[in-house]
């Protein structure tokens, strides 16, 4: 298993390199520059000032040289200084904002897993009964609705009509409720749908009939025999879902004013904050790759038939 992990991690290197290259190329190929910002209320700079700034940030060098310099520094964990927040290093911003996003994403994933599994299992057990239809309908609604639209309705319902929780912020646990729910809803629906269909497949299997014939309690049959086998395909989608939660948080963080990475990302994009963009893109890339690796390893734990070669 160790060689397998090592090989997977080594494979991440060319992928990340390609991601860096594509991002870098798109940033530099498109017209405009960070010194001539298009953002609102930006001050135009004189050509001399632009030249000086370019020199200071190394933007006067040929593009390929800039890329090499970036790579050499990035390998050592140095992503430079943000162009938008001029006196802050990129890694500093990320160290401050990423844990908030991770916290929000972790809670959302937990809610999505618990809610999605519960919904999916009850729909599969009570197939073609009201619970099942309710589950399918909720799942369809939650998959189809963008999370910023859900956020608007949640704020309207929970904050304005019922006045249970504040409309935004991130200081107290009561602030966490709405962003977490909003972010969890889509992934929860996907997990529920997936769980339902794999559970239904497994319920029909021979070993389940055997388990029932042995006289096992129905709850034990479902929770132990069926669940264990139905969870394997469900696991596959959890990795990508977590990445989806990561990117989905741009909107949720904006609407609920959560000081996470999502807000910085959008600002860095429109402000052409090259160092920040590169760092965030690579961070998401590493994160997604690690999540997929983790899921693949969990696979082997759940299903002894899978061997890593």
């Amino acid at each position: 298993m160790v060689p397998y992990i090592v090989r997977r991690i080594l494979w991440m290197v060319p992928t990340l390199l390609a991601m860096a290259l594509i991002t870098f190329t798109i940033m530099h190929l498109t017209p405009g520059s960070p010194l001539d910002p298009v953002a609102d209320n930006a001050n135009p700079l004189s050509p001399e000032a632009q030249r000086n700034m370019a020199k200071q940030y190394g933007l006067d060098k040929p593009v390929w040289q800039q890329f090499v310099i970036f790579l050499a520094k990035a390998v050592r964990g140095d992503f430079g200084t943000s162009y938008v927040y001029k006196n802050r290093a990129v890694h500093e911003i990320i160290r401050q904002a990423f844990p908030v996003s991770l916290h929000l994403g972790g809670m959302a994933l937990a809610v999505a897993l618990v809610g999605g599994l519960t919904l999916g299992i009850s729909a599969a057990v009570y197939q073609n009964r009201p619970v099942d239809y309710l589950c399918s309908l909720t799942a369809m609604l939650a998959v189809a609705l963008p999370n910023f639209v859900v956020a608007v309705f949640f704020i309207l319902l929970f904050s304005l009509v019922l006045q249970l929780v504040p409309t935004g912020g991130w200081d107290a646990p009561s602030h966490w409720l709405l962003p977490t729910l909003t972010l969890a809803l889509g992934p929860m629906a996907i997990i529920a749908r997936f769980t339902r269909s794999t559970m239904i497949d497994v319920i029909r299997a021979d070993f389940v009939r055997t388990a029932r014939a042995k006289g096992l309690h129905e709850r034990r049959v479902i929770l132990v025999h069926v669940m264990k086998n139905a969870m394997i395909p469900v696991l596959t989608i959890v990795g990508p879902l977590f990445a989806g939660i990561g990117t989905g948080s741009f909107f949720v963080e904006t609407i609920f004013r959560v000081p996470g990475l999502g807000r910085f990302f959008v600002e860095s994009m429109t402000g052409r904050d090259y160092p920040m963009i590169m760092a965030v893109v690579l961070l998401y890339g590493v994160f997604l790759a690690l999540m997929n690796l983790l899921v693949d390893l969990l696979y082997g734990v759940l299903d002894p038939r899978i061997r890593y070669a």
Partner: protein
Amino acid sequence: MARAPAQSAALSLPQAQSPSASLWKHAWRRLRRNKLAVAGGSTIIFLAVLALGADVIAPYHYTTPNFGRNFEFPSREFLLGTDHLGRDVLSRIIYGARVSMTVGVVAECIVLAIGVPLGALAGYYGGRLDMVLMRFVDVMYAFPRLLFVIMIMSMLGRGLLNIFIAIGLTGWVRVARLTRAQLLSLKEREFCEAARAAGARNLAIIVRHLLPNALTPIIISLTFGIPEAIFTEAALSFIGVGISPPTPSWGQMVGENQQFIRSYWYLCVFPATGIATIMLAFTFLGDGLRDALDPRLNE
């Protein structure tokens, strides 16, 4: 299913005609029996009429400001209220349907136009082209899609055309992969061998024999691609890198007004309802189409 082979004179297979007619007829019958799909389809037609006839239907123009009458709650004069410039929200929502519909249809056409030929060539010819394409696809899959789209948009700048470009550039990967997988299995089938034995050229085999047989999964991916494109536009406009004002877009209206949600809830809620409606309509229709075209899935 094999309608196209019957059309080519040199290789006409007489028995291929009848299953083709019945496939679409059966699918249509199954689709009509699905209430959610019918509701979705009707909603889409309704929104399309709104979009096309916006100039006639909307009570005001979307840019007409009413100074001194900003932030008015819904009334008989302004059915859905007015925004911070005193513009009629209802009219802006009606015009906003245009953006959503156009993006859904045009962007998906671009996605298909890039994805299907590339996927077909890679699947049919294999070899080096296939390898290069698949490596590229792997890298594209490593990017969270939305992040990539936001990046392209913030580099290109706002505008409808740029939205098409951004969605097209990122969306074709999925279609290409799907088409490739379909062709990989289809090209091993007997009818393909028969066509080759009859002397058909490679291009003719792909266009007349293989692609028509891969049509069902492509159509299904199209029906899910359209709401995804609509969502992408709304999301981009929401964070301010999508459509350029003053053109109204539902996503942009939600994004612009979410800061006022505590005081003027209606500014956010009505466009959000618009997005919800169009997304649900396309999803319901898509689900219905999938079940209708591929009854095996719906056991």
